[in-house]
């Protein structure tokens, strides 16, 4: 579990913090991170660190973000850039609209990846991450969609058919339901599996006990 690892790490962090090791070009200089919204995925309450690391996210204000803000206004919760990679934090209700706009107007033809991250202590627990790529402009854009537990997200299958299996995998491993998906079933795990493994409260050591007990009739050796 994450907490145990943090506890053990703080006890053996004798060396000076090597965070943000600068040994090559391209170290981002960040003065401060103004107006950090509550939906920012900065790690909460770091225990007993030697110094608080400087956040590397900077606010993003370029043509692209301006166009999105103009178009969607409050739908764009934030626009940031992390280590030179831009991303927009958007409202889950506007996901389908923003997706369609991205594909049609901004020419992001390829949904390169669609995944999720679990922040269990946050109010909106999940972060759906869509990584878009444009062949015409040769740029990437990341969309981050905070999602509460139990909240359904709009399926992107109509816009990018590649999202079919990608969303099935998110459903399988995180339990996020996509409204409008034609075939939302588990894909990597057996159909009768209980639980969603990539959630942070899914114990890695106990993961297969019920399935093994039911199907093999023995106690899992973990």
């Amino acid at each position: 579990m994450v907490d145990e690892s943090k506890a053990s790490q703080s006890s053996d962090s004798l060396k000076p913090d090597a965070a943000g090791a600068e040994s090559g070009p391209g170290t981002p200089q960040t003065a401060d991170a103004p107006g950090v919204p509550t939906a920012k995925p900065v790690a909460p309450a770091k225990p007993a660190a030697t110094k608080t690391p400087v956040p590397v996210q900077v606010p993003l204000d370029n043509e692209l973000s301006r166009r999105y803000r103009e178009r969607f206004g409050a739908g764009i919760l934030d626009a940031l850039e992390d280590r030179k990679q831009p991303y927009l934090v958007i409202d889950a209700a506007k996901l389908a609209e923003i997706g369609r706009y991205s594909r049609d107007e901004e020419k992001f033809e390829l949904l390169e990846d669609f995944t999720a991250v679990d922040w269990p202590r946050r109010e909106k627990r999940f972060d759906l991450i869509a990584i878009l790529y444009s062949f015409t402009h040769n740029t990437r854009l990341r969309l981050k969609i905070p999602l509460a537990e139990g909240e359904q997200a709009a399926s992107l299958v109509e816009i990018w058919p590649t999202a079919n299996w990608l969303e099935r995998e998110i459903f399988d491993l995180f339990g996020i339901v996509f409204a409008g998906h034609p075939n939302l079933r588990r894909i990597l795990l057996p159909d009768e599996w209980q639980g969603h493994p990539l959630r942070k409260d899914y114990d890695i050591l106990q993961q297969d006990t019920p399935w093994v007990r039911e199907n093999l009739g023995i106690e899992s050796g973990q």
Partner: protein
Amino acid sequence: MSPATQALLEFLRSWWVELLSGVVIVAIVPLVAGYVVLVERKVMADMQARLGPMRVGPHGLLQPIADALKLLIKEDIIPDNADKLIFWLAPVISMTAALTSMGAIAFGPSFQVARDINVGLLFIIGISSLGLFGIVLGGWASNSHYSIMGAIRSMAQLVSYETAAGLALISGLLLAGTLRIHGIVEAQEQYGVWFIFLAPIAFFIYVVASIAEINRAPFDLPEADSELVAGYMTEYSGFRWSLYFLGEYANMIVVASVATTLFLGGWLRPFASVRWLSWLDVLPALVTQAVGVYCLIRAGKQPVAVQTKFMWAVALACFALAAILAAPLVGPFRWRFLMRGLHGAFWFLLKVGAYIYLFMWLRFTLPRYRFDQLMGLGWYILIPLGIINIFGVGIAMILESEYGWNRWLALVVTTLVTLGAAFFLLHLNEKRKAAASSAIAVAKEAVAGDIYAG
């Protein structure tokens, strides 16, 4: 003695040679087929830049024995819902058909079980095509989806290509004028030239059709193990499987023998009727001698003592064979009669071996035909070409006998016309395929309901 026993003894007295030969065939052919498998594995390895079986016996020579023993002691598995009687019967039919058709093959002027029956070639073709029952019944009796698909494909393929092979053989038979095996070879002796030169297109059709008849690549879709596991043989294991397998290799020998008899001059040496080339008669002994010498040279280079001794033994056997083959030439005059028999057998087996090597070569070079392409090749190209070729050869013979044309001129002219027809058929086939693939595109659109399935 009762009249029944008397009749039996009478029968045995007049037919004991044939019966003995039959027993010899049934005893020896499985062993020979096993060694043909070994040769195939070695040839396959050679073409694939590796060595093949090397461990069991020197240079892998005891591999077939080991395989046979292993197959005999394997567990006999019969699928639950299989039809037990037919499941047992199918490989038996396959093997029996192959062995029985061997009865009429002449492995030289003096080695033939069915001594000179007047329907020799027809007998061989007819009985060997009964092997089809073995395949179909085996696939059906296994009660498995893959098996039945393999059996049905195999049935369709065999029937089509037997027709094509038969048509090709008819062209040769027109030239030979008889179905008797000895008669066919004598006809080639009289013509002074092998029928492959007189009817090359027929030979080509027969080569292609014979590969398809014995289910070998590129026509081995029924046993394609990347698609249907092993087709009709999927559920067979152990000895039953080995019967199928040996039946296939026995069929290979049968088909090669038919081609050799009809097209390659049977047991005649090259240029059999040319007197001044009769010094070619030393070739069998010479070739065997050369092989023996090569074995001696290689004996010194073997890594292990056992293999060295083995090479010496092989060299000795080669020299003995060379001596036997040379005996009629250098021995007393009354040994001359042996020449026809021994040398004939040597040339026959050499040609059969070359034909089988061609089979193997094609197997390891070419990819596999898809089933519809395979059937298209048979029905759209080979069968029409076979029919046209029969007309061609017939017309050539009429031109020669009725109109006094030079035989070679007549045959060349008709062969060229048939070649033209062949290209025309290929062209038609291309057009048909183009139409078919656009049909697939149409089918794709029609069927493409939701692209989100799967």
